[in-house]
């Protein structure tokens, strides 16, 4: 069955996403990476729903897509906010508070 390959693809995407989140300093890129993870999740859900023969997975995936959109909206707004206040979106410069 093909589901295994889908799952593998999902896993790969997940890892790439994780790498992106941890490695990239650019806020937008990080957002993108997170989107990757979410999509890997969607892939998983769809593959599983096919394997389990239930629609729950599909529904779940739809919810995730919808909410992810909202999330990204908020995220981009914040990135803009940062950019307006400090003319950069490099995350490693965000260290006003520590300790």
């Amino acid at each position, binding site marked *: 069955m093909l589901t295994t390959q889908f*799952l593998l693809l*999902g896993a790969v995407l*997940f890892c790439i*996403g994780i790498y992106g*989140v941890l490695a990239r300093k650019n*806020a937008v890129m*990080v957002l993108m990476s*997170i989107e990757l*993870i*979410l999509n*890997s*999740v969607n892939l*998983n*859900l769809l*593959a*599983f*729903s*096919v*394997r*389990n*023969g*239930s*629609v*729950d*997975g*599909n*529904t*779940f995936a739809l*919810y*995730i897509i919808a*909410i992810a959109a*909202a*999330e990204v909206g*908020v*995220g981009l*707004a*914040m*990135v803009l*906010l*940062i950019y307006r*206040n*400090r003319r950069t979106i490099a*995350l490693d410069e*965000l*260290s*006003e*508070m*520590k*300790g």
Partner: protein
Amino acid sequence: MSSSILARVPWQSPAIDYHAIAPEIVLAGGICLIILVDLFISESRKWITASLAGFVMLGALLPILTLAVSDSDVRTMFDGRYVVDEFALTLKALFLVAGYVVVLLSQNHVEEGDYYQGEYYTLLLTSVTGMVMMASSRDLVSIFVALEFLSIPAYMLAAWRKRDRKSNEAGVKYYLLGVFASAVMLYGMSLLYGVTGSTLLSEIGSRLTVEGQFGGVEALGITFVVIGFAFKVSAVPFHSWAPDTYEGAPIPVTAFLSVASKAAGFVALVTLVYVGFPRAQDVWQPFIWVLAAITMTFGNLLALRQSNIVRLLAYSSISQGGFILMPLAVAGTGDAAGPALQAVVVYLLVYAAMNLGMFAVVITVSRTTRSGEISSLGGLFSYAPALGVLMTIFLASLAGIPPLGGWIAKFGAFRAVLEAGSGWAYAIAVIGAVNSVVAFGYYGNIMREVWMKPAPHGETTTVRTPSSLVAALSITVVGTLLFGILPGTIMRFGDLVDLTGAFGG
């Protein structure tokens, strides 16, 4: 092919118990109302939105009361995905009251900072709505939805002071890490769905670990899901966002995050643990044990170093979270399940009261001192005895000193742990005992400032306390004292039987 799956499912609209979801409906209505009102009132009368928000919260409490007294105690909808039972009601009430207190706290703060009041309260209400939904969710999807529902507004609230770099930073950190965590959690959820073939917690519970054997995928899924909420409750090592966010966000928002959203995280955790994977305790018990131990320890140790009161409270709330986690670490062993659930619920209630109270005092004082440093509290007792005593009460309660609320919470936690009676249980009990002593190190330090230090640069102007803050203070202090002196009033909440479907039932 997938189309054929859809075809095979017959569609019938689910029965909806409107009484059961009345609170959510009220809140939703309230949100719309505020948005509308906000559009039409002049800048000078924006305060109306605040009072509206408050009324909405209280209004949402009414159906909860009616539900509580109504005879049919458990109401389920969408074949068990959305449940209103004693447990859910208790926590919904908690969220609403907490939300109300936060509104009280916010009123002057937001007004004087001329922030966008209407939006502020809208978002606050939205977040509270998400929490209220969380209390009833018994399904991966609904849990996820509720989680995002309460988180996303919170991200924005954290970054509310647009011009303030700290606030921005707080928002962004909270946002990125939050989203990251929920992504990881989602991956875990997908795995769980894959192995069990259902998103309904009770079914997952019954299908997971059919006589105990299960593979790495289940373990992975469970771990990732637990981590998702460990992040919400800012358990070490998933706490890193909390101090920065708490410090950067507006203080009322911090209060909200440290109480309400943390409580929401625990609610989800409890639901998952009790309903979702009651038989998989081999996975989550040791995990939560470690989380609890290091959370309370690190939280305390780091708190000892802080000089900023808000940041200190952030760490203190982290270590308190460790204490709340403690009973869950034994929730899977025999008789301990009941007391553990009870301990968590009681702890959440008490913690809400005393921590909100603490923030209320801090807000009131900082209105005068204009500083977040602990040293700015010096001599508070001498020039504002009432506030000094109140702060002492809340601090003592946080430190768990009888007869204040905090002690019964801690007591419940210890009781639950010792009920389990295993070696690990005793170990964490001792760790908790030692930590409760260490904790006094910094609580006592604040008391010392308040009582024994002279006021910095002769600051002795009497503190003016706005009526809203007075209300907030009185609510919280009454709660703190009442819970402590007559614990019977809350100990009755959160009996295991009320949590429908526990142990796959």
